[in-house]
């Protein structure tokens, strides 16, 4: 008897030694950590993207960012303030429970609860009404044509699971114990996480009962953080990982030279731009006293025309950027092609400065992060050198992001005179940019919170309000174009470029690179 048991045990042990040989494993490395598995604890592209392999929203976005049905089969707008979503039947969470309307109601409460970082996904005053086990109504207080634009990353959680594990509320930041939902998941998606060691390693296994047909061919997926740039590239070259993000621009040639690896680059949605303090009567960091030169549109335009964007593209970005005239990616606004940058013209710029009363230029301090965007500090240095040619003496203050954001954002009282910033609209829609970046700073309306320079034009505010509730797409796009036109004429900011995604990929891996840089590996395949 015991002998038999031993034989079986031996067989199992031997069997377990070998599956690795046949298994197809995807190993990927990113520069940052997957901090929490709780899908409401951090509104950040990487975490939400990776969790998108595990959790699913009512809607999804396809490979070209079009909104497609997810856990909702279809939806209709019954009246402008009442949306009905019909849920997909037969969907099961990873623990085997059915997904129903109760879970949607629960997720709607949880995503707006204290401790959630995704409160913007659903208006605070929206009511969620159960119509049946597989239909839910969202009742709004005002029309909102882009209600569901961010719902691809508003992931549905199981009510009974969360209640059973004490995770009804999102993980509070001060918690002494990590909440269950931060270390475990129970989604409906194509992969389940079987092991999660924060900051070290996360292991994914395919969900064999997924409702959709999988495109991937992985038996397991391993995620590791590799923060050091050189190590990350070396790991790819050595074949220790199949996919890395990002590849530093200077290493692109080396990755391409290796026969087994290649670099895949594409446009990213993030727009990099410069901004000016136009609110204070005297700049905090300048030698111009008693007045603020940036209040004069001629000065702003002079700065704009002094910048040789093609030189930044070819020298600083090594060709991997798309110069832009707008604060939004052309992938997100169909009419972006109608806009052209103010031309690079240092002579005209110098004349504009002289007309404004600064023939000899002036000094100003520029705030710049040095570990946030691709080559951010180098861009600022190039801008400084270009402005020097028209007599502007830029004193560059480049700092790590923790210091930079503490200084320039609302928490630091917008302590800057001239800055570089990047922005991706979370909703993939122009309204987000008009409201947060260009809109007047207003504490009560919560608008313009990232309008660090305090540019303000009431005409844009009015248009932004109309855009929010306009359901006719052509009319809406026309108003958006109008608002962007005003900002362009006013030189509210200096848009620079959309940076590029730079992935390092082993050649036997087929990937889908979406411009929002979400890593959805259920579309990847290994040959």
């Amino acid at each position, binding site marked *: 008897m015991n002998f038999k048991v031993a034989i079986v045990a031996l067989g199992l042990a031997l069997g377990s030694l070998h599956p690795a040989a046949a298994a197809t494993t995807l190993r990927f490395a990113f520069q940052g950590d997957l901090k929490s598995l709780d899908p409401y604890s951090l509104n950040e592209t990487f975490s939400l993207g990776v969790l998108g392999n595990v959790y699913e929203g009512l809607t999804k976005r396809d490979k070209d960012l079009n909104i497609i049905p997810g856990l909702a089969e279809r939806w209709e707008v019954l009246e402008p303030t009442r949306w009905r979503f019909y849920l997909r039947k037969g969907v099961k969470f990873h623990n085997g429970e059915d997904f129903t309307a109760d879970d949607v109601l629960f997720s709607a409460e949880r995503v707006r609860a204290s401790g959630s970082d995704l409160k913007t996904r659903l208006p605070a005053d929206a009511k969620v009404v159960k119509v049946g086990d597989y239909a839910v109504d969202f009742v709004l207080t005002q029309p909102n044509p882009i209600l569901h634009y961010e719902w691809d990353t508003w992931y549905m959680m199981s009510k009974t699971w969360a209640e059973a594990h004490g995770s009804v509320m999102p993980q509070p930041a001060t918690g*002494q114990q990590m909440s269950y939902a931060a270390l475990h998941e129970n989604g409906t998606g194509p992969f389940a996480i079987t092991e999660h060691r924060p900051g070290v390693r996360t292991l994914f296994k395919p969900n064999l009962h997924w409702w959709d047909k999988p495109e991937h061919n992985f038996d397991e997926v391993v995620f590791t953080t590799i923060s050091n740039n*050189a*190590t990350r590239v*070396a*790991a790819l070259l050595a074949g220790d990982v199949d996919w890395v993000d990002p590849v530093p621009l200077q290493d692109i040639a080396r990755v391409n030279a290796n026969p087994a690896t290649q670099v895949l680059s594409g446009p990213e949605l993030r727009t990099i731009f410069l901004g000016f303090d136009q609110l204070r009567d005297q700049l905090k960091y300048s030698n111009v006293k008693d007045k603020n030169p940036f209040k004069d549109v001629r000065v702003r335009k002079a700065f704009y025309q002094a910048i040789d964007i093609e030189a930044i593209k070819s020298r600083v970005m090594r060709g991997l950027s798309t110069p832009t005239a707008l604060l939004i990616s052309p992938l997100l606004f169909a009419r972006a092609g109608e806009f052209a940058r103010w031309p690079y013209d240092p002579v005209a710029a110098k004349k504009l400065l002289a007309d404004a009363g600064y023939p000899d230029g002036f000094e100003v301090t520029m705030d710049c992060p040095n570990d946030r965007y691709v080559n951010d500090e180098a861009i600022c240095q190039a801008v400084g050198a270009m402005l020097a040619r028209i007599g502007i003496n830029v004193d560059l203050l480049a700092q*790590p992001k923790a210091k930079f954001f503490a200084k320039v954002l609302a*928490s630091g009282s917008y302590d800057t005179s001239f800055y570089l910033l990047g922005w991706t609209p979370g909703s993939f829609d122009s309204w987000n940019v008009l409201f947060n970046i260009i809109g007047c700073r207003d504490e009560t309306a919560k608008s313009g919170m990232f309008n660090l320079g305090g540019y303000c034009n009431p005409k844009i505010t009015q248009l932004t309000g109309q855009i929010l509730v306009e359901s006719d797409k052509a009319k809406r796009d026309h108003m958006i174009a109008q608002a962007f036109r005003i900002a362009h004429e006013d030189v509210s900011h200096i848009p620079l470029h959309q940076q590029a995604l730079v992935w390092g990929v082993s050649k036997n891996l087929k990937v889908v690179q979406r411009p929002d840089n979400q890593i959805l590996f259920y579309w990847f395949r290994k040959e």
Partner: protein
Amino acid sequence: MLAFVIRRAVEAALVLLVVALIAFALFRFVGDPINQMVGLETSAEDRAQLRHALGLDDAVLMQFARFVWHAVHFDFGSSYQFKKPVIALIAERFPATLELSVVAALFALALGIPLGVYTAIHRQSLLTKLLLALSLVGISLPTFLIGILLIFVFSVSLQVLPSFGRGDVVALGFWSTGLLTVSGLKAIVLPAVTLGLFQMTLIMRLVRAEMLEVLRTDYIKFARARGLGDRAIHFGHALRNTLVPVITITGLQLGSIIAFAIVTETVFQWPGMGLMFLQAVQNADIPIMSAYLLLVALIFVIINLLVDLLYIAVDPRIRIAARDA
């Protein structure tokens, strides 16, 4: 003896307090942790609420007092980034760092002592000159450069050793070890060599200098006069007497190996405390930083204490002096 230990313990507590104070003063300059904890679109009210919940809006002195009070109860709070108690995080990461440090120290000793002896005995040989020249390189090259160099030779070009990570680990109770699996053993080679190289050259040069000194002394001459063989003289008499300072230095160096594993761990993405500390600095994760700095200070203090006690045990002269005092 007891008085000596008590005096040392009081001194140690003082050192820890000073380290905590300096660390706390420095945290003013790492940036705003709140910005690293939330997404860009989080509202100002939510941020203020979070700041209040974490006690970050209190006066600095108040925050420091609270930190010390909690620290004496072994409570270092929760990491802002991982939202997990810092003690648990450190307990998770400590085995990786200690294993790496011990292997690096063993590597340094196992290679440093024989090479030191060799270069002291064969002062004029070509190999000695080569080794001394190489050791100069080992001392002067920065750790991260050595690490990247080793990765490119052994991982990218030869593809014999992994470029990052710790390989497969086996859990023995609370301790996770990578020393029991093939991939774990392969993974530790490059980081341990990188981390131990500086110590190795240091020990080699130290042993050599001490050996040269001892070989000139009278009792070695007497030993030779007695007709003892080279082997007995070099290893039985000379090396044994050089080891006291070597033990001291090695002991003290173990502390710095643990503390300075930061760079090596970052280059090799070794999941230890040092890597966690560096990432905490980038994210302004104050609870991790303060706990780590205190822990490193504590390790130094304990090692110093042990070395002092070992001294008394090893060297009779100190024992006599202590008794007289």
